[in-house]
């Protein structure tokens, strides 16, 4: 590991200015559960590390049923799943926050860090897409917003330009008769990188028997996390029954373009997409009916 400079600004403006003006490579440090590992193993290099956890906006977690959730980019995962209101309003996000690492990791790791690391296997990414989150990005020139679905551009790459940082994630207020879920497949029961993952958000009609809107997103089966567009379109108006979930799973498999590697083959990953989409849809519907 190379030596680097360290700064811990207390405002967004200061952070943006440090990041913009740094000679060489500047990197944002949130929980450090990706970054420190990568620096130590010389996978990434840094001349300046900017610790953003002292910026108050970055660790906020503000939720109200009317305005939705404003999640500071560096807020550690445990604050999400330990918050009953947030967990109830955004179960897919809580599902992901709960399984990112063990509790040592989840008390440091942030959703913002997970997103900015931009691995297609990052567990919170599919929920961000399914929940239609927006990313608030701050730079020297001010603030811009992009949809979570447009944030990652390739494995390890995203839309952030030099001098920009992710300030927060904004989630729409929960809709009535709607809920969500996230599930991943790993070959053991905890602490592993997803072989495949799926997150589903559904909204039901008042009677609770028909899907009126849906967003299914897939992880670890394409260069970036992506929406299962064909399945999402088809789901609207379908009855909320197992056959629907199954068919959506089949459609979602077509949206996957996985690779074979030591965690799994193309065929296995595609197969898992079908299983996980079906399961998360079933869970999301059950939760919506239970009034979660």
């Amino acid at each position: 590991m190379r030596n680097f400079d360290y700064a811990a600004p207390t405002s967004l403006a200061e952070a943006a200015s440090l990041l913009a003006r740094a000679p060489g490579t500047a990197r944002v440090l949130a929980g450090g559960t990706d970054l420190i590992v990568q620096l130590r193993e010389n996978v990434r290099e840094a001349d300046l590390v900017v610790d953003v956890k002292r910026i108050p906006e970055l660790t906020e977690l503000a939720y109200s049923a009317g305005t939705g959730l404003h999640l500071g980019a560096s807020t550690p995962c445990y604050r999400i799943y330990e918050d009953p209101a947030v967990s109830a309003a955004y179960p897919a996000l809580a599902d992901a926050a709960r399984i990112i690492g063990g509790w040592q990791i989840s008390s440091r790791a942030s959703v913002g860090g997970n997103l900015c690391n931009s691995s297609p296997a990052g567990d919170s990414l599919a929920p961000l897409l399914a929940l239609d989150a927006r990313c608030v990005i701050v730079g020297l020139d001010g603030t811009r917003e992009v949809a979570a679905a447009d944030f990652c551009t390739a494995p390890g790459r995203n839309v952030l330009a030099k001098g920009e940082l992710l300030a927060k994630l904004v989630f729409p207020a929960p809709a009535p008769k709607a809920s969500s879920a996230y599930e991943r497949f790993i070959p053991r029961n905890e602490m592993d990188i997803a072989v495949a993952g799926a997150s589903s958000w559904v909204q039901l009609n008042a009677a609770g028997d028909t899907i009126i809107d849906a967003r299914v997103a897939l992880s670890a089966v394409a260069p970036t996390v992506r929406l299962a567009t064909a399945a999402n379109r088809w789901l609207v108006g379908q009855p909320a029954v197992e056959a629907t979930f199954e068919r959506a799973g089949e459609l979602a498999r077509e949206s996957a373009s996985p690779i074979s590697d030591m965690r799994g083959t193309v065929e296995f990953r595609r197969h898992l997409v079908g299983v996980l989409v079906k399961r998360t849809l079933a869970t999301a519907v059950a939760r919506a009916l239970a009034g979660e």
Partner: protein
Amino acid sequence: MDAMSSGGSEHVGAERIVAERIDDHQGGDNRGGDPGGGDNRGGDRQGTIERRSAGAAMGQPVRRWDTVAKLRGETRFVDDLPRAGVLVGGTVRSPVPHGRLLGLRFDPAFDWSTVTVVTARDIPGENVCPIVYRDQPVLAFDRVRYCGDPVALIAAEDEETLQRALDAVAVDIEPLASLFDARSAELPPEATVVSAAPPVYGTNNLYRRIEINKGNASEALAKAAVVVEGEYETGAQEHLYLEPQGMQAEREGGGIVLRGSMQCPYYLVEAVAVNLGIPESQVRVVPCAAGGGFGGKEDFPSLLAGHAALLAWKSGRPVRMVYERVEDIRYTSKRHPAWIRHRTGFTADGRLAGMEVELLLDGGAYSTLSPLVLQRAAVHAAGPYACDHVRIDARVVATNHPPRGAFRGFGGPQAAFAMETHLDRCATRLGLDPVELRRRNLVRPGDTLATGQTLGADGNVRTVLDRALAESRFVERRAACAAFNAAADTRTGATRFHRRGIGLSCFMHGTGLNGNAEGFFRSRVFIDATENGRFRVSTSQIELGQGTETIVAQLAAEGLGVSLDGIELAPLDTAVTPNSGPTVASRTAAVIGRLLIEAGRRLRTRVEQFHGGPLADESEFRAAAARLAAAGATREVAEYTPPPGFAWDEARHRGDAYLGFSWGCYVVELEVDLLTGETRPLDITAVQDIGCVVNPMLASGQVEGGVVQALGWALMETAVWRDGQMVNANMTDYVIPTAVDVPPIHVVFLEQPLERLPHGAKGLGELPHEGPAPAIANALRHALGRDFNAIPITPETILASQD
């Protein structure tokens, strides 16, 4: 007084369930004879277990003596030694799996005067790492045989300089064709084809072949009513001890001292003396605390010690070499992958008529311990079954993979996987219940194993099977699994795709080193009385986290007839410590235990003679011992000699392959998800006969740990090789079980004492690695109705087996 012989007969057949009975017992840290701040009280003696002798330390769940220091962070591992003035050493390695080494180029832009470089030319002694054969050079000089084969060593003032220096060396190699498939490795006797590359080893790539013949297997198979064949395969496995390999070497007087992480300090004495060309008396080895070994620190530390010693010798400075995790996983040994073929003949009523086993191990680029791993695999290949006609043909061959080496079980788990998976298939063919098939064929006292070894009174394996069936409620659970599967379609949701199965395995593990090896080592232990009324015990056994220090103390206390607070352990330093042999082969409790009991009893007799009569009261006895110590030297030495009647013919592989055998029967119940291929063990029952439970808490720990390690080997641990290099050489990609993957493990010990040893103990450490994999494969077969003849059985293999 002879507490043991009466104690021994009292506990014949005694059974103990200890898994549920782990209380917070007091321990102590008496290592180094300085009780200091550590409490040195012995185990809680509330009589949960019958007393064995006056002190009754043995059989008690005494807390590990090393735990307090470890919990407090006071334990010193090699990388905790002071850094001042110590150079850091690193290794220049072959980038290819096979090739002729043409030379090394040192980039002139780097200032080589700032570092110490050692190549094969700088080795003052022999360029060989002596393990069993002498084929492995300490540094490759003419040929490289695996990706990572060391070709040069560098020592620098700091890590950064070291890294720059390592990067500034180019290794010139003319690549040769590589050999990765063990099944086609062995060359015919007169190879007429001029092969593209010279053999990796010798003239034909064969490290060793062992044939074991009992009766006439081919004739018996020809006449058998039913013959069942099968082929089985097991994969490589990484040890993943917590602490990576590490060694520090420093010149001292005219010689050298080595400190580091190891299982066998005296192996290092020999290796370093050979490398430096100095007498063994000039090599001192002082082991540091070791963070786990599992066999991985049996042979490899000899090579690393040679490296560190060569750098220290040339530089005149202390040199430390500690591997990073990736380097450790990539370049140190793994469990031998195995291919095993069974042909088994039965009589019409399901009795074994004849057995033929062909066994092949991939030994990798150098032989290391392969010849001995092969021996254990061969002896265990026919399992704990009575059969008059057995032929075992076992070979270990060279490939261009990194050398394979010792790993808990030492060839036994591979053999047991094949035997026990095969037997369930045989049962189906015979139309017999797998339990019944085993019951009809398991050995009994007086029966002989494949090598002709006759079993004593402790050879009753049916007792182990029966107990496992009872403890696991096998028959009832099996019916429940079948009912669960039959009702699948009546369920909704995820459980509709769940299936359950239950399986078992019967297995054995030979105690101590094979055949004449224990006699060859002539292990010795010392016990001295001290003037403060305690007894100081010296062995070269290593604490690896398995509780060796604690049981050594318990066994010495047993021999002396004192409580544990009368015992202290001498620090380990080969300059003064007797060679009690390596800490391997599940030998400490049995073999070293015997020596400790003998030395302890003799010392007691001497103290009593000095006193002029028996001393029943412990404080009086210890006071007398203190007076004896004050009067002069009191050292009692016990040295191993083979027990009367022990006979092993190494050339023909006949006779007593081991002192005796531990027996196990494990039951695994599991659930498998048809949609994802995930296997979830639900419950494991582990029943074993280990002759004598020295410390039930530590014994349970060994079983639990072994079960988990074997569970990983069976279900998930996959070493992925590309061009001879392990590509998932890190803890992110090489997946092992975590705590949440482990089901409840119900541990039961039976004690059928080995008559050859005073306390009857048989080996434990490796045994638990043998049972889980075949029990899992058999349970999956029960759940899904398909054979699983190869491990690891990953989700993907389960899904693939469905279509």
